[in-house]
């Protein structure tokens, strides 16, 4: 009955769900590994609001902490976010891309398309939730983590209902309005406000009943991990999901399809308003197009702001979190079996008994490089190859400017953005350390962030070189990402195996954290090596682009 639209949607989306499941699982795994057998009474010293939000309870053991706080909270939020992104994309997204009209030109009704897409979403959510449950139970079993009376299955049933709720809410708004931004924006708002509201309101006297206004309450309010399935709550979420599906379908059947559109942003509205037109015009218009590098900067604002906000807040939270962890925990971690040592090596290695080592494992080892390279690779891959993929390079180069100037200006934006991510990382780390009184050296934090910036520029430079040589954006993005991942693995293997330690020095990651800069400060050779790597890739980009034909199609 469902045919091709269903399978195509599943095929387009399964990888995203697999990655999301893997990420949540890796956090749970880390939780089990890092915190098993610890006395967690210290967690009770956390602010009450924080405890309430992430589901901490007095007397909780490590297994419960991992499942409740990591899986039950971050995992559920991740799944809800995945579901609403896919839901918003399902009808409104295709409309925005301009492909929905083409799809409906086939002898398939709107109902057929809608049902197929919703069915694909529901199937993926069910499979991902079941997989999450199975691998969590399995992992706990293998690692001898006693989950005791915890009803993980009940948590998953609630998680399933909750994930469906947000997914279908986004589907409904998108299908009824055809506006993808409205669909993801409004449902994200419901998710975030609900999460905060249902977590914080019960702390206020008489607030419990107000918490019931938020959908998140019906996921976590009954504490299914301890109390089993609360069928009333599950039914409410499931019922609402069905209502959303019906509303979305009816809305979709009744309205006009929208054409391909770029959507309206807040700044566009400001430009239309005579009161704000002048300022908004300058921001969105004349300033943005005054030069190539500024235009490039404006195109990548969102990824920059997201990456900076993420690293800043994670770093800010980690300081106090570390301070709250009991010292005895780290002594045990020091005696980890060798297998786990390898695992930690992939997260950057480090001695967890010092704040620096903790930061290194938790963020600098993996998360911060991912964030900075997300930005630099996006800017660099877009610089030459992206402009060719979008077929605008011919028009750009019809102006009296050299190809080299295009590369130079866009590389400047990339380097500037890497530095901004570095500064955000520094600010978050330094502030987190100050708040928690961790007494980390500001110079060492700064040194690490400088190395991080240079590592990001080196990764971006590689993407630039691939893009300049091939004109293919996907080659630039995935080529650079693949090489950087491989080099990261090389460095990790080199760091734990003495025989292979020479391998490390082939990897730029060695010149980033190899000297343990958070503890020991900068080894001045290392930034020079990273800068040379970046300079070589940027340098070869010029002749590579200069010599070849501009691609016309992707």
């Amino acid at each position, binding site marked *: 009955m469902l045919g091709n639209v269903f399978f195509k949607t599943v095929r387009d989306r399964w990888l995203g769900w697999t990655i999301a499941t893997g990420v949540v699982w890796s956090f749970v795994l880390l939780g089990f590994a890092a915190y098993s057998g610890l006395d967690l009474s210290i967690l009770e010293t956390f602010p009450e609001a924080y405890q309430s939000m992430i589901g901490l309870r007095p007397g909780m053991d490590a297994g419960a902490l991992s499942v409740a706080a990591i899986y039950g909270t971050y995992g559920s939020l991740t799944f809800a976010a995945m579901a609403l992104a896919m839901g918003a994309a399902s009808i409104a997204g295709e409309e925005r891309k301009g492909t929905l009209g083409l799809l409906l030109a086939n002898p398939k009704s709107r109902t057929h398309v809608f049902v197929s897409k919703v069915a694909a979403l529901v199937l993926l959510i069910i499979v991902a939730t079941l997989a999450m449950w199975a691998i969590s139970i399995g992992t706990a079993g293998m690692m001898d983590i006693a989950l005791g009376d915890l009803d993980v299955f009940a948590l998953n049933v609630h998680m399933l209902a909750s994930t469906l709720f947000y997914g279908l809410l986004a589907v409904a708004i998108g299908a009824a309005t055809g506006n993808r931004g409205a669909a993801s924006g409004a449902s994200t708002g419901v998710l975030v406000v609900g999460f905060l509201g249902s977590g914080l309101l019960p702390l206020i006297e008489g607030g419990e009943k107000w918490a019931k206004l938020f959908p998140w309450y019906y996921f976590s309010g009954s504490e299914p991990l301890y109390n089993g399935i609360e069928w009333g709550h599950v039914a409410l979420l499931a019922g609402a999901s069905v209502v959303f599906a019906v509303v979305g379908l009816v809305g979709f059947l009744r309205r006009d399809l929208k054409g391909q559109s770029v959507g309206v942003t807040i700044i566009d509205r400001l430009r239309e308003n005579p009161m704000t037109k002048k300022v908004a015009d300058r921001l969105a218009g004349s300033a943005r*197009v005054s030069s190539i590098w500024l235009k490039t900067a404006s195109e990548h604002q969102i990824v920059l702001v997201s990456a900076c906000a993420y690293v800043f807040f994670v770093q800010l939270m980690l300081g106090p979190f570390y301070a709250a962890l009991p010292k005895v925990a780290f002594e045990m971690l020091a005696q980890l079996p060798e297998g786990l040592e390898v695992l930690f090596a992939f997260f950057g290695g480090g001695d967890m008994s010092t704040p620096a080592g903790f930061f290194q494992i938790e963020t600098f080892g993996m998360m911060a490089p991912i964030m900075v390279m997300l930005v630099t690779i996006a800017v660099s891959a877009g610089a030459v190859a992206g402009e060719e993929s979008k077929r605008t390079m011919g028009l750009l180069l019809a102006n009296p*400017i050299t190809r080299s100037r295009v590369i130079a200006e866009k590389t400047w934006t990339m380097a500037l953005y890497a530095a901004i991510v570095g500064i955000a990382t520094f600010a978050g780390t330094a502030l987190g350390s100050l708040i928690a009184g961790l007494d980390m050296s500001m110079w060492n934090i700064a040194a690490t962030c400088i190395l991080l910036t240079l590592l990001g520029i080196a990764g971006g430079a590689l993407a630039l070189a691939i893009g300049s040589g091939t004109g293919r954006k996907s080659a630039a993005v995935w080529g650079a990402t693949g090489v950087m991942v491989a080099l990261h693995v090389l460095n990790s293997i080199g760091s734990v195996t003495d025989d292979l330690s020479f391998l490390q020095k082939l990897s730029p990651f060695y010149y980033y954290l190899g000297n343990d800069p958070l503890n020991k400060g900068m080894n001045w050779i290392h930034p020079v090596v990273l800068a040379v790597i970046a300079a070589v890739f940027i340098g070869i980009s010029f002749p590579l682009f200069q010599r070849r034909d501009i691609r016309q199609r992707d």
Partner: protein
Amino acid sequence: MSEAAILTEGLTKHYGKVEALVDLNLEIPQGEVFGFLGPNGAGKTTTIRTMMDEIRATAGRASILGMDTHAEPVEIRKHVGYVPGDLAMYPNLTGRDTLMYFANLRGGVDWGYVDTLAERLDAQLDKKVGDLSSGNRQKVGLIQAFMSKPEVIIMDEPSSGLDPLVQRELQKMMREVAAEGRTVFLSSHTLSEVQRVAHRVGIIRHGRLIALETVQALRSKAMRQVEIELDKPADVELFKAVEGVTDVRAQNHHVVMTFGGDMGALLKVAEGRYNIVDISTQSADLEEIFLTYYQDEEASA
């Protein structure tokens, strides 16, 4: 200012084994509108992209205003306006933002003139390019090419998506450019458009220039499809003998032929033997002209 606006000498471009362009020789004087005609995939865009230094010639060279296109591309672009075929722009920018971006890269333009152009083409500059229909997007591309009053304007199928009124305005703008002593290189697959504005026409097929004629000469050679209805069954041999007639078919009282000669002579022959009941002529479409040239070329080869 005696040098040619555009000069190509043995310009050749191969993509691997595919010969996209072979030994193109053109000399276009300043002040001319040059029409570059050919079916899809003939090599029109390849020629233009080579002239713009987007792609590099396998052999031969091209120059614009006396400057080599590969050696001095930046200097050339100061004097050239360009509308690429299959125009793509930045969807998030408005038309005005887009023009401002390119104006900044050019070191400024006369905004009064931009407004005049926008008015003439009925362009919407305050909408985002991504929200415009393809015709309205094309207008932004056209303004972009004309706004700096360049000495040479190169356009690759510029009227795609434009309605007939705007097409006519564009043709008027091209004639004005030529009248000011500036040059237009117009690639097109629409003969009627080229006929209206161009002084000379180059016809390209399979990467080879197969004809270079004034529009007048081309028009006189244009083949017509002639269908004559007679009062009795037609004798094919009779019509075959008339000069300029090719490809005659007769069906009962009807005779259909491709004709490229003096119509009077044809009618005289018909009236000698028959009464003409009805006659219709249809100007041959471009493809037939190509075919004619192509067949000629093959015959002489």
